[in-house]
């Protein structure tokens, strides 16, 4: 293949001229990648290195910093109950959101996969919360969750289910779950659209063949829809995981992490450590753990789903 057609510089040539050409082409290829590399270096790699540096100091952002080596990390893992509480909250929140959001969006997608007028209208309706701002969603749900005036408790009291009328976001036991429910409500429509796009790619012939073989609806789902939907599920779950780790705005609007940090996740903890407590170095160490946990969870997920996919 000639260089004119864009061949890779790894193909060997015999003469000096082609070698020069390959060198020149390689330069062009590297130059083409340069803008992306620069953007990555400036906006990702640079701050990452800076964050690493901050994690080694004790600094309030005002006075001079003090080098503490790995002190921040050691304190984080050995003498910070709040860190473990937040870690537990974050994993629980992510688990709840990923499971319910994925399940619900898949169910909605299965029912609304056909392009009928009613289905398109319903898809629009379910997608609607996604276009709202997180702050608006948080405030709306705060009103709904209000223990004394909120529609949810008024409903339960009206139908005689007083024991279901909880202090939703004011109690340590229910605050995180209540916010997780809001998060699921907020983003299920978005994931449903992704699923619908995936389900519409499944060849109709497979369902026809399954019907001919006498497969029930459940069997069709189990042996056709689900295996074919796994690639979409990988995308949905990975995206939902990242989204749930970043649910800062919703939590901050609804509870600011309270009561007693019962609804705090890493993003909220880091924010408070930086802006409220002015412990920049410690927050840097927290953020490194945050990334490690996120990577760990995502890798686990991908491994689990990829294994299923390969089967």
């Amino acid at each position, binding site marked *: 293949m000639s260089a004119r057609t864009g061949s890779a510089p790894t193909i060997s040539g015999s003469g000096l001229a082609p070698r020069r050409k390959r060198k020149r082409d390689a330069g062009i290829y590297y130059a083409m990648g340069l803008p992306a590399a620069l953007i990555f270096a400036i906006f990702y790699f640079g701050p990452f290195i800076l964050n690493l540096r901050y994690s080694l100091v004790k600094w309030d952002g005002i006075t001079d910093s003090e080098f503490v080596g790995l002190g921040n990390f050691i304190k984080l893992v050995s*003498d910070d109950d709040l860190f473990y509480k937040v870690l537990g909250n974050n994993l629980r929140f992510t688990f709840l959101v990923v499971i319910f959001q994925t399940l619900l969006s898949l169910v909605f997608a299965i029912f609304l996969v056909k392009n009928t007028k009613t289905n398109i209208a319903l898809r629009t309706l379910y997608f609607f919360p996604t276009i709202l701002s997180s702050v608006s969603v948080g405030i709306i749900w705060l009103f709904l969750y209000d223990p004394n*005036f909120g529609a949810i408790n008024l409903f339960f009291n009206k139908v005689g289910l007083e024991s279901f009328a909880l202090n939703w976001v004011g109690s340590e036991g229910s605050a995180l779950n209540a916010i997780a429910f809001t998060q699921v409500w907020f983003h299920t429509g978005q994931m449903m659209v992704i699923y619908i796009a995936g389900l519409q790619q499944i060849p109709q012939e497979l369902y026809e063949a399954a019907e001919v073989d006498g497969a029930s609806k459940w069997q069709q789902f189990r042996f056709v829809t689900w295996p074919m939907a796994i690639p979409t599920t990988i995308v949905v779950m990975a995206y939902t995981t990242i989204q749930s780790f970043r649910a800062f705005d919703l939590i901050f609007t609804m509870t600011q992490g309270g009561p007693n940090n019962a609804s705090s996740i890493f993003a909220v903890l880091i924010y408070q450590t930086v802006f409220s407590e002015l412990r920049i170095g410690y927050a840097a160490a927290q953020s490194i753990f945050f990334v490690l946990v996120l990577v760990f969870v995502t890798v686990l997920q991908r491994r689990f789903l990829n294994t299923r996919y390969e089967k």
Partner: protein
Amino acid sequence: MVIALLFAISASVVPISQSLAAGERLGATCTTEGVFTGTKSTSLVCTKVGNRLAWQRVKLSSGGGVPVKNLTPPPGEIEFWHYRPEPGDQRAFVKIIADFEAKYPGTKIKQVFTDTTTFNNTARVRILQNPKAALIATSRGAIFNQYVTADMFADLSNQRYVKQNLIAKGLRAGQVDGKQVGIPYQYLFNNPIVNTELWKKEGWKEPKNLSGWVAWCKDAKAKGYTPLAWPGATLGQAAQISNSALMNSAGSYDELAKNLADLNTGKIDLTSTWFKGVADIYVKLRDAGCFPENATGVNEAAAYNLFATGKSPILPIGSFAMTSIVTLNPAMSGKMQLMSMILTDGKVVAEGIMNNTFILSVNKNSTSRDQKIANAFLSYLVTGPVAQIYANESIQHVNVLDVEYTNVNLLNTSSFQAKDTMLAPRFLLLNSSVSDLTQQALIAIVGGKSPDDVLPDFSKQIKQKLS
């Protein structure tokens, strides 16, 4: 005696033959001791004359002499950074700035403002990069302290307007090491607001001590009210009542200040005898049914709603909440007063809380010319007629002399001037982690937990934050 009535500034009540305030008659009977119409020398105050109450004219005399006119600014433009986006404040500032710019063509003041949370979290860093931000407002406590630590404020100690235009006691919140680096503009009262109509209807009398409050809560609850519209889900406002709980928790203000300073640095923790006493006040109020049902889930908006709709006779937040209440229910205008909340059966150190905040400072990193503009505009803000515009539009009492209050809610709550007030003690916790965790512990107690469980748990959290 009258000194204590009027912001505890040096003042004297002297009947003099000048024109009276509208609707008031010198020497005529009045009903509430301490009610006053402003801080002008022509204002009236309701005070005891012999055995009866009567309107007397007040003549204020600040330590530094009579109030002075504002300084003249050089031409140029500066930014005024603050955290008051509320409509009333905006109406006032837009008018005040327009008047100032009209008076001094070539001088421009640009407002840069956000909500309080955003301002507290981001403004300092942004101002450090922006010397045009020559006039800065900060709130008392941890935020003001951060700017002081960053050495961002110019010394205003020698300005004549500081000595002569402001209420001396109200300046303390802007002083650091004997220097006046900020001018507290607002004079707030972080005490319960009462619905006077409900109190009259039910024939309640003001509780005089903790036992009285416990008894009143039981009675109000029995009559179907939520005694205190307390927003347990909004930390900052839930914390206001802690001022009243702290106020008489120690033998003196100095002792209280020392306890809070020790808590702030970790010398003592929440399991100390003193703080257990504070927690016990919350337990007594909780057990008497003072707080709303599911109190820890009631946010600020819901609490305002409880009070504005007459479901609750008391909003334990502060005078600054009156604007929101009137917005929710205009019929509440003129029906609100402040009340002392003495939560002790022992020695009374103070009868109420006041707070001087919205502290205005000149950025020492600005150019000399911009500092002059900021200083001149600040001196303009603290002249009586200008501060009067701000006070009556924003419905906030101000820390400025020669102000005539015309807003009915400011006049009605001015009776609180008669009290022996204490500078809000909760802001003495300058470490925000300690402050927040302390408040969270008290909220958890209201939520039903035992102090025996809560106090050691939160003490441990504080210790970990401080180490």
